[in-house]
């Protein structure tokens, strides 16, 4: 190695090659690792989704048997929620929060490295059983759906044990990351960056981190109990041994419902930044949004049993969970008003991030409104466990978080890489995503209303036309994402116009006072706000 290289190394304070990424404690490197890992897992989860839609294209078992089908839907769910969306969201927070609040790095950098490197083993644990099955060991991965309801999950094959350990690793990873985020925001804000000035995105992540720390232990505990039931002769969930199968369902949804808001809140936070930038207008209703986030966070931990209306809860419990669930529509409604208020009388332009942000409002709007229907304990007799629910949560989770992640990706890509992406390709990506998404999932509302249960590998002939439409939509939606990958690749190899530090003429915030791409270390001397 020549002296020049050592100088360059000294200047950047980081080793080169693989060790840079393995040992890094730099928040930007870790952020990029999270984001890259998350998008890789999006591809894995997306391929699984394509396989599901290929099987469901026509009635009759065609592509695979029901055993493999059940495994694919389970891994698709777990990968998309835990290994794709949460890491991308954690990557965004890692990369952005120190720059947004004027901190030199996260408060606990070594912990930060550790919480990232727990993720790849967790993802490997989910898919490894397939590889083992290929070599004749075991019978594939978990096949119980991502909800892992006992006693089906007690009965399930060894793939379930792998999934339990994956969940425990993910629990450890996101709890450590959440602690790190809270400590950073509490302690490392630049002078003058008071609580009423920190960007909305930071607020959204403060709430997310609190939720993760509060609810994830319920799932981790339940997962350990499941492990004990499977191998140590306990009977937490087995009725024959005095246990209670419904206990799992309660514990799972005590975590599972807030999980939706864990996925949603960060992108609801970033959305406002994007709307404000492209409307060239300050954020509308800052305090209202912050209080709405807090209200959502609090209400979300007391509504879990609306996932259990058909499990035979007492009537009074059904009514309570219905009304508490409906209460969420109020803070969410306030968020919508603030989003409209932010663009109202603005001076809007429609670059790709703005298109995705507006698409977010429309699609998440449909998801939210159908959620209001689902809050009804009586009508839920028809929706529960049917395709209506699948359509609803894909409208909320793709319409919200995924659209938000794509909007944020286009918004910050020039900041990360220093290069502008291709606007035409971005617009193609947006419109194909919107069309593909709606063609995929709107028919699923109708399928649910028509009586198609979810998680079935094969269906009655009356469901055939809409399933065909849904599958075609899914292939368009899947193919559209390749445009995005190509667009990102272009900026990474240095094609595209160089980006300015400000990137967008309406952009506000400390991160836009830095050059694009930002230097390896930023705000070593805290800025004054």
């Amino acid at each position, binding site marked *: 190695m020549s002296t020049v290289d050592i100088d360059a190394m000294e200047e950047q304070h980081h080793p080169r090659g693989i060790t840079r990424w393995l040992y890094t404690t730099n928040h930007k490197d870790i952020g990029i690792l999270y984001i890259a890992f998350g998008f890789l897992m999006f591809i894995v989860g997306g391929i699984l989704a394509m396989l599901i839609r290929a099987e469901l294209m026509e*009635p*009759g*078992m065609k592509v695979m*048997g*029901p*055993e493999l089908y*059940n495994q694919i839907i389970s891994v698709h769910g777990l990968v998309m929620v835990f290994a794709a969306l949460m890491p991308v969201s954690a990557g965004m927070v890692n990369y952005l929060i120190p720059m947004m609040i004027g901190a030199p790095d996260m408060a606990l950098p070594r912990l930060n490295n550790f919480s990232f490197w727990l993720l790849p083993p967790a993802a490997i644990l989910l898919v490894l059983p397939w590889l083992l099955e290929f070599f*004749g060991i*075991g*019978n*594939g991965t978990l096949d119980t759906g991502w*909800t892992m*309801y006992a*006693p*089906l999950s007690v009965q399930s094959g060894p793939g379930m044990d792998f999934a339990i350990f994956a969940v425990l690793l993910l629990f450890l990873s996101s709890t450590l990351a959440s602690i790190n985020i809270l400590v950073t925001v509490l302690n490392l804000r630049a002078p003058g960056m008071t609580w009423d000035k920190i960007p909305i995105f930071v607020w959204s992540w403060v709430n997310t981190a609190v939720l993760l720390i509060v609810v994830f232990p319920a799932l981790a505990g339940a997962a350990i109990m499941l492990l004990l039931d499977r191998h140590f002769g306990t009977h937490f969930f*087995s*009725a024959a041994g005095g246990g209670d*199968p419904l206990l799992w369902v309660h514990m799972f949804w005590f975590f599972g419902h807030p999980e939706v808001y864990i996925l949603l809140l960060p992108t609801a936070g970033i959305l406002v930044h994007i709307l404000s930038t492209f*409307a*060239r207008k*300050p954020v*509308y209703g*800052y305090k209202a949004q912050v209080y709405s986030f807090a209200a959502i966070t609090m209400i979300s931990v007391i509504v879990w049993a609306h996932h259990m209306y*058909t*499990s*035979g809860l007492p*009537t009074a419990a059904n*009514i309570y969970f219905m*009304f508490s669930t*409906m209460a969420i*529509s*109020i803070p969410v*409604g306030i968020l*919508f008003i603030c989003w*409209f*208020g932010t*663009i*109202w*009388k603005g*001076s*809007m332009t429609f670059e790709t991030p703005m298109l995705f942000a507006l698409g977010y*409002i429309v699609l998440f*709007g449909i998801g939210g*409104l159908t959620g*209001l*229907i689902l809050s*009804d*304990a*009586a*009508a839920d*007799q*028809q929706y*529960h466990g*049917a395709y209506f629910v699948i359509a609803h949560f894909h409208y909320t989770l793709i319409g919200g978080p995924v659209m938000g992640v794509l909007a944020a990706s286009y918004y910050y890509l020039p900041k990360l890489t220093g290069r502008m992406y291709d606007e035409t390709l971005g617009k193609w990506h947006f419109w194909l995503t919107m069309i593909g998404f709606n063609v995929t999932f709107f028919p699923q509302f109708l399928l649910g*209303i028509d*009586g198609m*249960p979810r998680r079935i*590998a*094969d269906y*009655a002939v009356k469901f055939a036309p809409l399933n065909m439409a849904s599958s075609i939509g899914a292939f368009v939606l899947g193919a559209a994402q390749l445009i995005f990958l190509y667009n990102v690749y272009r900026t990474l190899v240095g094609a595209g116009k160089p980006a300015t530090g400000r990137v967008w003429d309406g952009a506000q915030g400390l991160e836009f006072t830095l050059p694009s791409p930002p230097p390896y270390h930023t705000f070593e001397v805290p800025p004054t706000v």
Partner: protein
Amino acid sequence: MRAKIRLQIVLAGTAMGAFVTNTVRAKAFYNFPTPVTPVAEDTLFIHDLFLAIITVLFIIALGVLLYSVVRHRRSRNPEPATFTGPRTRRQWMWSAVPVLVMIVIDYIVLGIPSVEAIMTLSNKGHDRLVVVATASQWKWHYAYPRYGIGFNSVLSTPRDEIYGNAPKDKHFLLEVNHPLVLPTGEKVGIVLKSTDVIHGFWVPAFGIKQDVIPGYLRKTWVKIDRPGTYRGQCSELCGVGHSFMPIVVVAKTPAAFHEWVVAEQAREAGARAAATQTWSRQRLMTRGKVVFDRNCAVCHQASGLGIPGTFPPIATGHPFSASKALLDKLSARGFYKDGRIVEGPLSNHIDIVLHGIPGTPMPAFGKQLNASDIASVITYERNAFGNRTGQVVQPSRIVAARRAKAN
């Protein structure tokens, strides 16, 4: 009751919702099946009402968004406003109105009919008839304690239709060998039990869906308006056969229902009598294939080759690998040796079919099938799929085995 709800809605100012509701009811597009029970009436009404309201809300919000996108673009509005929240009283009103509207919609317009529907659903009134539906992987068993009858109800769609080797029937995957028969016009209580995992009892035309949870007795009820055939499916993922355990209900007028009960009692008496007879090998084999295809093929496959790792082959001589726990259980019973499935002793075979293998998915068929069916299926398994024991099991032997265990 219905009139009262309607009145409240009009009072709440959603006459528009009722209008859209009627349009929806006119079957303009996909909707729930025509309701035949009071619960289904309620759920359809609420569904239509909710759908109408959220459609109106969505159109208003989309209108506002599109208006803003058109009017507040840079080319038409080069100077952005700078407000960050409501300031004047009028602006506060504009911000508060949607929130107040949301509260009224949630707790009055939707809340009141929803609570009434939940009350309907939890009707604890007297049942004229109680039926016990027991779910197992992957079939339903329906019992009528009052009449002393009970039977299994399993998918009757041939496997060839599922795997594309035969054209699909109109009722593909929604047809069973023996439907649940219920009388019309009477309140029928349905008690739900599960023998293994969580299943779900869902018949869309009845508007009911009830999870069937092991260790719990769950109950729901129907009062069917019209005779007819109503089809539904299991609604909770319950394993490999989840897609293949439909629920078919045939509703008959009370007179026709009682005729059916008498005929069914006679049929079951006939089956009990048959268990005391000596069956020919041919009769056992023919019946055995039917029983096998309905009850065993979903796991052990119609080919008898099973699924590696989970479901052992019935055909002997085939290699099988699985967890050590499962293989140990098979070898202890004499059905597994040196990596291959072998033909174990007949007495163990009878024991496995009657009582299952605890700790594995193999259920105890003794509770589900009658002696003739069990005798037939064991005879069939020992003489089909290339197995050549030549052994014939008579129903009397099964009756004796059951008695021995009971003692």
